[in-house]
């Protein structure tokens, strides 16, 4: 791709929309993942007792659903990103491609 084509695409409003939406979405989810994981790590480092606290009369502690929750959250957040990227973002990319190849 030569620079003139690149410059033309870069000026396309669809491209700018794609770039800013994807970047905002990607970074927000990255931040969410960092908060959840490091939140979990800091909880372990400073408040072990919260995770070891029993939920009821049995042996089950809050730590088990929280730990499983982190795993499920990781899978879900990935799915959410892929769903939007493969739908909305790819449709925008397709438009940009058609525009560029005209």
């Amino acid at each position, binding site marked *: *791709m*030569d*620079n003139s084509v*690149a*410059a033309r*695409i*870069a000026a396309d409003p669809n*491209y700018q929309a*794609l*770039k800013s939406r*994807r970047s905002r979405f*990607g*970074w927000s*989810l*990255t931040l969410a*993942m960092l908060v959840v*994981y*490091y939140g*979990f*790590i*800091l909880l*372990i*480092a*400073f408040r*072990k*007792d919260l*995770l*070891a*606290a*029993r939920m009821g009369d*049995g*042996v*089950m*502690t809050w*730590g*088990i659903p929280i*730990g*499983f929750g*982190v*795993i*499920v959250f*990781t*899978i879900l*957040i*990935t*799915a959410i*990103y*892929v769903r939007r*990227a*493969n739908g909305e973002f*790819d449709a925008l*990319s397709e438009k*940009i*491609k058609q525009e*560029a190849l005209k």
Partner: protein
Amino acid sequence: MNATLPTSFARRTFAIGAAAALVLAPTLALAAGGDLGQADKQATNWTAITMFVVFVLGTLYITKWAAAKTKSAADFYTAGGGITGFQNGLAIAGDYMSAASFLGISAAVMSSGYDGLIYSIGFLVGWPILTFLMAERLRNLGKFTFADVAAFRFAQTPVRVFAASGTLVVVAFYLIAQMVGAGQLIKLLFGLDYWIAVLIVGALMMVYVLFGGMTATTWVQIIKACLLLGGATFMAVMVMWRYGFSPEKLFAAAVEVKTNIAAAKPGTTPQAAAAAGQSIMGPGNFIKDPISAISFGMALMFGTAGLPHILMRFFTVPSAKEARKSVMWATAWIGYFYLLTFIIGFGAITFVLTNPEFLTGPGGGLIGGANMAAVHLAHAVGGNVFLGFISAVAFATILAVVAGLTLSGASAVSHDLYSTVIKKGKADSASELKVSRITTVCLGILAVLLGIAFEKQNIAFMVSLAFAVAASANFPVLFMSVLWKDCTTKGAVIGGFLGLLSSVVLTVLSPSVWEATLGYPAGSAPFPYTSPALFSMTLGFVGIWLFSILDNSQRAKIDRAGFPAQEVRSETGIGAAEASGH
């Protein structure tokens, strides 16, 4: 090609390995013997061996089929780019779920409960980061190796030399860990000698990669992922079935077992025993200090996005859309697998720790060592045939991982060093393919020799070192080159090497090498934390930033001017390598 091939290979490698063993013998005698990962040899297990032979024959048949399709360098590196997202997701999972994570994490859960879960979560959280920031951009910019992406707008030679160094260092440490693990595990499961086990792994991996390239490697990984996920699911379901699918009942039974074990020790009060039993339900001593915890978490999280053998898998799919689907499936399978290992670990407490058949004596450890937790559980829930199956799966697991590593190392040498640096991009596909095959053989022999040399070493640090290097060297360079417009060749190379060197040096100075491997007294390690990533990754990023902004060379102008075109391609995929032929 037929089944006699590995025999001739094994024979040839045997001679080399035997000679090397003689040369290395004095070194081994002098080396400090570590206790981790050492296993007692078991009686020869014919069921397991039969199942493993079936697996090997099946994969050799696939290799034969793949060999017919592997004609160009593109076929060898990326299976022609024709793998689907779902298949690639399984293959990535197969590349990532090592025997250490299956046997090691279930053993960790069995011995300390919740801490095993904390450990496994660390290995999962890097995947979303890789998805959000890297996966599609990698696919849009790259062709065969991650260096294609890192060097996209930079001076090729220095960045490729750095990327190949980063790749080979990560591959070497990861490979040694896998080979030593393989030898110990197979000695344990099949009752074969350590060096025979290492030779078999080395020879089979060479055959897969040499003849079948990425196509065979991918299918070996897919089959292994299915077998491992299927076997682990069966074990977890059998455990849950026994407790009426009630987690509370399973956990209560496990706490009771742990309480009884604690109470059996003389001088333990009932209260102390109950507390010890309940301790498996919450965090224990896995995290010693917050700095180590954060640093180790960073190594795992960002290291995943810098592992060359994983990054390479993104070039096997035809488009960015399929690349995203790959990580989606990989994350789901790996996450599911870690949930299973947690249940398996608790199952091992209730089924294995209570059965004298699996213990060395009353209140003693497991026969064959703690890492046998999942294997004994397989015996307990599925009898001798299932034991054989799980043993064969564990062996297959190692093969799939080492094949992926070797392929990645071979690509770094042939595509980055030979084709781009030495031949300045003018090498034809046939000669590049030849160099990758020669490198594959060299890496295979090297892996066997290193596997034998490190038999008695404490190699617990090696996988975390591989992650630390990936997080501190490969990831920052990749990240900055793709996302930061002012990054220059000089900045990327200097910063990358700073990250690489500092992560290796700090690991050597940390307790896991300084005290556990080199044998200096406890507490004398100059670098007190578990993982260097917090410091070395920061150094890598700061180095790239500093040497880029200070860079006023002619090259820096070209580097910066190349960013807009790179960005357009990374965002839209226009001009990206196509599926077939690249």
